[in-house]
């Protein structure tokens, strides 16, 4: 494998991963506030369809992204009403929406299957794009990729450097304590659920208007579930979620390269392999196995290493908040 090929693989990986960055960061925000939005699979499908349809109708990519974000937020609103206000099982509501919105995308999107439509134009950054290695990797893509970098940075700063971000982490951890400090837990949970949903909607449009341009039945099948897995892999940290997305992107782009070089394995396997590998990584890095393994480390190492790789979910994730 020569050097250029490596750059191609990495560039493809970044492109594949970008929608997942939006989706997994959106879900991370929602879950950090204590709400599980399990509808990701359906949300991404329906917003990909709507985004494409809106852009196709208006011939304006921005309108497409706006429509996709609104659809994502509306689905999240249903989850929020069901979970926060009506205190029903977040899993049940999210799962039903995942099914429903997926079918809805096929049903409503039937007329626009495989029609050509607008796509996000590429945006090469002058001068920087000529830097060897980094140029082709980072500065020869389009506005959406740059936006995903910005999103990562902003979310991280918001989470760990701002007052509101601290409150966001608080309400998912110990809503009673956040309430005692004067937070309006219910209102904030609604807000972050909707924000996360909108980002997931943008992820859908990122597929249909950019990285997998166009619309077909089950256009983004599987990516919603993977986004949910990446959130766990990322330990509810936006940067690590992005890292997980890139890891998945690399797996996918390696699979397409390996396809041609490994002969006796059927090619179709490579399209499934990244999903399987991602899940294996998830199973290995979460749960109690890890805690048990870490317990064997010498005491001096245990704490920093545990801190670095062990990330428990927000303590109040999936639980309704009751006030006396």
């Amino acid at each position, binding site marked *: 494998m020569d050097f250029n090929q490596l750059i191609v693989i990495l560039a493809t990986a970044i492109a594949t991963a970008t929608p997942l960055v939006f989706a997994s960061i959106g879900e991370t925000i929602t879950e950090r506030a204590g709400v599980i939005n399990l509808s990701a699979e359906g949300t991404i499908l329906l917003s990909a369809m709507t985004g494409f349809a809106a852009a196709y109708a208006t011939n304006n990519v921005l309108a497409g992204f706006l429509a996709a974000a609104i659809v994502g937020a509306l689905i999240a609103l249903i989850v929020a009403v069901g979970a926060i206000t009506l205190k029903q099982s977040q899993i049940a509501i999210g799962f039903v929406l995942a099914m429903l919105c997926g079918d809805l995308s096929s049903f409503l999107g039937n007329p626009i299957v495989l029609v050509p439509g607008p796509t996000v134009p590429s945006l090469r950054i002058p001068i920087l794009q000529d830097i060897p290695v980094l140029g082709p990797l980072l500065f020869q893509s389009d506005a959406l990729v740059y936006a995903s970098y910005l999103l990562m940075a902003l979310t991280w700063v918001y989470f760990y*450097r701002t007052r509101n971000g601290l409150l966001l982490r608080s309400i998912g951890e110990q809503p009673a304590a956040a309430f005692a400090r004067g937070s309006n837990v219910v209102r904030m949970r609604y807000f972050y659920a909707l924000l996360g949903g909108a980002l997931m909607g943008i992820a859908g449009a990122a597929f249909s208007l950019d990285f997998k341009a166009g619309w077909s039945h089950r256009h983004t099948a599987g990516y919603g579930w993977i986004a949910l897995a990446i959130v766990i892999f990322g330990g509810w940290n936006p940067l690590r979620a992005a890292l997980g997305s890139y890891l998945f992107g690399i797996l996918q782009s390696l699979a397409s390269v390996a396809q041609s070089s490994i002969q006796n394995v059927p090619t179709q396997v490579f399209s499934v392999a990244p999903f399987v590998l991602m899940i294996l990584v998830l199973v290995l890095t979460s749960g109690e196995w890890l805690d048990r393994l870490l317990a064997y480390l010498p005491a001096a190492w245990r704490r920093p290493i545990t801190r670095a790789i062990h990330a428990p979910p927000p303590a109040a994730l999936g639980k309704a908040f009751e006030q006396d």
Partner: protein
Amino acid sequence: MNVQLQHIYKNFGAVQANDDVSLSVESGAIHGLLGENGAGKSTLVKILSGFITRDRGEILLNGQPAGIKTPADAIRAGVGMLHQDPLDFPPMTVLDNFVSGRPGGLFINQRAASHEFKALTSQFNFELDVDEQVSNLTVGERQQLEIVRLLALGVQTLILDEPTTGISASQKSALFAALKKLAAQGKSVIFVSHKLDDVAELCHAVTVMRAGHVVGTATIPCPSARLVSMMFGRELAAPSKPQTCRDDVVLQVQHLALSDGRMDVRIDRLDVHCGEVIGLAGLEGSGQRLFLLACAGILRPAAGDVRLHAARNGLSSMAGKPYHDFLKAGVGYLPADRLREGLIWGLTIQDHVALRTPASSAFIDRDSTRQNAELAIQTFNIRGRTDTRAGQLSGGNQQRTQLALLPPALNLVLMEHPTRGLDIESTIWVWQQLIARCQAGTAILFASSDLDEIVQYSDRVIVFSGGKVSAPIDTTSLSAETLGEMIGGKF
């Protein structure tokens, strides 16, 4: 800040937690709020801090009505509360906890916050590392963090709910010094406790609550006998349990050490005899529950051994044995939280009877379980039908159902608050059933916050106070005053 609570009412379902409660605290004063568990102290202070909304009543701060409806309102009005279980964020750092919820600009100025934090902690001789994770702190340190955080918010009235439970002696003295300093600065402090010693050492005045009412106010110093009689009410009832003890030991506890992370309980030696009833006195959360759970085989002791009388071979060690073996050894446990631990909300009385019946086949014999359930309903006078769900029963009837579900032949029955929520008639009836068991040789250990019940039905009493455990005392040699003082921690 001068605080006045006027005619506060609050009920939870059928329970009147605060019934026309008024309280007045001067600025610069440390005011104690004494009372048994369930007396309504916590509800009252949670209302003042906006954590619970009151049904009726007025809160005046410096004579002005303060519209406190949420914690945000309370903090704005200068009232802050330190909850009994620290309300903080264990996975986050001390600094994050300190900053969380403070007003300010979008970005957190970590350096300024850390500077302010250090200034405040050194003022009170607290030693806290800003970068430490809160989950690694002791309860006492978490309290210190909360106090510092509330002070930084500009709180003028500080409420502390049972702050001396689970903290070390040096942390306690640091806490008291800090509180005295705050009072000297003109702040008012409300100190909720059941510990007479602590109240006597710290407070200027004390208000005593019982069953949702204020029963009296006193200035300190005040003879503890008077406080005890206010807290626990009338004279104790006379012991009325018939003699059922036999010589053989059914439960032996040796060098038992228990911990739930917050409290350590140590019991060196206890022999419980067949037919004996031992009452565990003390305020709730003083360690009785841990002891009962350990005897039931649900909580693993940190050290020591529980030995049970097994069929023929006398006492045998239960160390490391699973809960199932305790059940087989004839131990029955009745939890206090009936709907959370004792019964299953959506299952009927008949279902519960079936679950307790040893199954001879895979199929449930409906007719015979229904008959058994009807029999249980009749014998235990349960107001419900065989198909009534546990969640639909009243509290008293849930307790009767729990009793009805206990297997007939047991060596040891462990109970928390066996007659809570029952009327007097039912209480007498329940104890008749239990004493009948004792006559058949069953030993009973029970925890109760009703001192009358303890004195009336126990052969011996053990007092728990903040994890400290007294030696067993014969009921006949007990007086209300010594018992009250022991519960307050004097032994």
